[in-house]
């Protein structure tokens, strides 16, 4: 990518409010990282002074730490040779330090030689490599507690590159506006400003191929080579800035030239230092923390910061896209497998250099101080995710999650952890970066909101369980803010939830079968459906964009129909499916019924019982939201399955297409019941359903009811054989098949209406 294109991109992405340095990415970044004063009112002179100071510091550091053993130490005329000889074992000797530095340099060289081979013309040049080596060496010597870790060179390289781009921009400006750069020694120009002209529109010169033409100050497009001398004030502001920043006679003289070729190393060092140890407050992003192996002493979780941040990513993902999250968790993909690389190099390995600069533009423009609310710091209070408590950290997390979401379809298709990791670690090259960044920004605001509502964050072990205002918060957030504990817990909790729901259904079916009552005030299948529908309805209204409005109306339809069905249900005594028309309207009916059921049932399995007790004793409200979560999670997953299958069944259901959207709402309903179908049942049912279309209404119902009961019987038998935890693969397949069957049955029922 040529420098001119690079400058163009620098212009396009200027998120911050300070528009003074639109073309100068290096200066912008230095402001954002806190090296240069960031208030818009700071003058060029102030910038120059601060720059000069930072450069002096670096020069002093270099003098101190870079050792040339040949140079005699100051003030010692005859150095004590027993200490200062090359073979000396004394660690204090200059030679000892020299050798230690040499070892460090060897490690650095291993990494540097492999840095950005695709841009090797710049990065592999000896000057650049020398600069990188020195900067990293000095930084590591200054921070011996961390030393050098692989990846730091990747953080440093784009910083140096950006500074180089600025300098090259400056040379272009210089070549075009030479009369502005005259040596104004003692206010006398060394040469007369001649009237020989320079092309006014610098942008046109810089990038011949650019499409968008920027207007000059007069509002006209520049044409070829206007011969017109320009005074300083008539230049556009950017060029003015460039001139002022590079004036050799401004404040601090040469040391203050903000865009200077000579001081690239110094500036890059200060940028690198600011990036690594950026934040003043606990919550801000300091990339150096990601390289630390042990947990900091004041950490709540006791995890190293990078692990903590990775789990923050997963938490955020679970809020936004629970199905993808649960899928990854099921495969056993721990977040730090990929997040380690993402976070340590700030996505340096995932994007090509040009995209990376845009991403870093966004990240750096986000404020790095911790969001403190009402004088209480989230981190001090003992909340788990430090990374989420600053806007920059939240944006980094949001960026990561949006990248995961970008790969959603391919991730959901993977079967094992290795292939998912492969997808995640080989991020595609041609990415629509704007979209990803947009998404990241929205996720950032979500993350910050979560942080603001402290009672939703997973807390450390110090504080007990979460709040009462859970339902309110979850609705207001518009997401399925699951009331989970710390993230590792939540994985298992979800699994437990899934199992639990299966157990629930299991027990229900059995109880139903055992009692054989028709019009009992008990949970019936349709009743359940209605309840769940009512819940999903309210859920749907809350979610932003997760369910289109049409589905809501379909859910309404379905519930209505089920209500009708209930009233028309045949009075056959041997229908095994209860079609009782009694409906308990309250959402907490679920738990109440559970409680009541307990007393009535006879042969129920021991395992669900203690579980149930916990549930009913505990928070019933929590239950509902858990169920809701199951639905939301499974919903998306099985929607696709349903799609596929309903495509297959066109022969049977003539109105497959219009019924399809109705089939979908049935799925979450179908899932909890979860009967099982063996192949022969499938066939049996097929012929039955075929006959359904010809037989009468009641018979059809009877038959479908019968087949459903058979499914239930089958599931019972399988579950008796093996516990749900270690269900074999073939069992799982049959479960899924049964699911499909039930869906079809539901479709059939609706088609009968």
């Amino acid at each position, binding site marked *: 990518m040529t420098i001119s294109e690079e400058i163009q991109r620098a212009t396009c992405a200027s998120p911050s409010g300070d528009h003074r340095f639109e073309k100068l990415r290096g200066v912008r970044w230095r402001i954002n990282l806190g090296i240069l004063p960031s208030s818009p009112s700071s003058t060029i002179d102030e910038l120059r002074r601060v720059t000069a100071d930072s450069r002096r510091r670096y020069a002093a550091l270099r003098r101190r730490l870079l050792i040339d053993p*040949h140079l005699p130490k100051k003030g010692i005329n005859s150095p004590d*040779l*027993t200490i200062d*000889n*090359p*073979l*000396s*074992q004394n660690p204090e000797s200059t030679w000892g330090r020299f*050798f230690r530095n040499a070892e460090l340099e060897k490690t650095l060289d291993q990494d540097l030689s492999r840095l950005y081979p695709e841009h090797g013309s710049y990065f592999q040049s000896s000057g650049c490599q020398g600069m990188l080596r020195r900067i990293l060496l000095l930084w590591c010597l200054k921070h011996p507690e961390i030393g050098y870790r692989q990846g730091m060179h990747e953080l440093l390289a784009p910083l140096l590159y950006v500074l180089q781009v600025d300098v090259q921009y400056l040379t272009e400006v210089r070549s075009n506006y030479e009369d502005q750069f005259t040596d104004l020694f003692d206010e006398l120009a060394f040469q007369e400003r001649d009237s020989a002209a320079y092309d006014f529109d610098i942008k046109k010169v810089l990038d011949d191929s650019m499409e968008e033409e920027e207007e000059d100050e007069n509002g006209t497009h520049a044409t070829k080579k206007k011969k017109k001398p320009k005074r300083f004030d008539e230049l556009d502001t950017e060029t003015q800035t460039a001139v002022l920043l590079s004036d050799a006679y401004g404040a601090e003289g040469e040391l203050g030239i903000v865009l200077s070729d000579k001081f690239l190393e110094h500036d890059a060092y200060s940028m690198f230092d600011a990036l690594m140890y950026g934040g003043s407050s606990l919550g801000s992003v300091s990339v150096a923390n990601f390289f630390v192996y042990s947990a900091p002493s004041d950490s709540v979780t006791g995890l190293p910061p990078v692990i903590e941040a990775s789990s923050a990513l997963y938490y955020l993902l679970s809020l936004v896209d629970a199905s993808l999250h649960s899928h990854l968790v099921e495969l056993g993909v721990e977040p730090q497998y990929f997040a380690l690389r993402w976070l340590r190099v700030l996505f340096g390995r995932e994007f090509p250099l040009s995209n990376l600069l845009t991403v870093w533009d966004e990240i750096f423009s986000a404020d790095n101080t911790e969001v403190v609310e009402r004088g209480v710091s989230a981190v001090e209070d003992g909340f788990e995710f430090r990374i989420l408590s600053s806007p920059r950290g939240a944006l980094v997390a949001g960026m990561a999650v949006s990248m995961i979401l970008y790969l959603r379809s391919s991730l959901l298709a993977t079967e094992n952890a290795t292939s998912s990791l492969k997808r995640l670690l080989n991020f595609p090259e041609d990415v629509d970066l704007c979209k990803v960044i947009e998404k990241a920004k929205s996720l950032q605001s979500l993350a910050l909101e979560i942080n603001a509502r402290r009672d939703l964050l997973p807390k450390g072990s110090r504080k007990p369980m979460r709040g009462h205002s859970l339902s309110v918060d979850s609705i207001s957030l518009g997401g399925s803010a699951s009331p989970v504990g710390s993230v590792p817990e939540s994985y298992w909790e979800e699994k437990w939830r899934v199992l639990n729901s299966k157990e629930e259904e299991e027990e229900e079916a059995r109880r139903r079968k055992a009692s054989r009552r028709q019009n009992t005030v008990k949970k019936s299948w349709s009743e359940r459906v209605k309840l769940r529908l009512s819940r999903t309805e309210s859920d749907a209204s809350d979610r932003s964009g997760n369910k289109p409005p049409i589905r809501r109306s379909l859910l309404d339809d379905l519930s209505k129909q089920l209500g009708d069905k209930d009233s028309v249900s045949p009075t056959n005594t041997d229908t095994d499916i209860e079609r009782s028309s009694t409906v308990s309207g309250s959402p907490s009916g679920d738990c109440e019924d559970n409680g009541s059921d307990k007393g009535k049932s006879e042969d129920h399995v021991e395992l669900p019982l203690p579980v149930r007790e916990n549930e009913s004793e505990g928070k019933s409200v929590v239950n509902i939201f858990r169920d809701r979560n199951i639905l939301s999670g499974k919903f998306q997953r099985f929607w696709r399955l349903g799609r596929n299958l309903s495509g297959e069944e066109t022969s049977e259901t003539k109105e497959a297409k219009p019924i399809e959207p109705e089939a979908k709402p049935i799925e979450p309903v179908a899932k909890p019941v979860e009967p099982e179908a063996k192949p022969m049942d499938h066939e049996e049912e097929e012929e039955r359903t075929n006959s359904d279309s010809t037989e009468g209404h009641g018979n059809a119902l009877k038959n479908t009811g019968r087949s459903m009961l058979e499914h239930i019987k089958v599931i019972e038998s399988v579950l008796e054989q093996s516990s749900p935890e270690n269900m074999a693969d073939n069992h799982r397949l049959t479960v899924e098949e049964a699911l499909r069957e039930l869906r079809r049955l539901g479709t059939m029922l609706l088609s009968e209406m």
Partner: protein
Amino acid sequence: MVLVLALGDLHVPHRAADLPPKFKSMLVPGKIQHIICTGNLCIKEIHDYLKTICPDLHIVRGEFDEDARYPETKTLTIGQFKLGLCHGHQVIPWGDLDSLAMLQRQLDVDILVTGHTHQFTAYKHEGGVVINPGSATGAYSSINQDVNPSFVLMDIDGLRVVVYVYELIDGEVKVDKIDFKKTSTSNSAP
């Protein structure tokens, strides 16, 4: 910034058992780039030991060496300097500067390293340097009654060579340093 170790006349196992422990503790692998040895090791075990300190080992034949394949003289170039290596028993009178200078001219080297006398010497002579690292084990010598273990480390840096001399005197390691600069015709000492 090349470190070159020069030593020789160890006479192990006939006249000495091993290098002094203090010397051994100083000679750690990784720091030294080349070793030049004047000969009389005499056995293969010492050869292997020197190889562990530095893989780049140059050896010439001394009269008591058991490996007959070593050459009589050797020349090599390190940095800007040409080094010549010979045991020294071939040049008579033993240790005579003028005769050694003849050998230096013959080999056309800047630095000539010889041994056999078991005595450290370093001469500047006619635009070149003649160095004798002495005996690293302090082995008995028939021509020299008072033998201290000694060896030489040369730090070659561009046109300048710094010679560090390590001697074991009364159980203590003493270090001395000599600077040589190479110019086209003559050399100057500090």
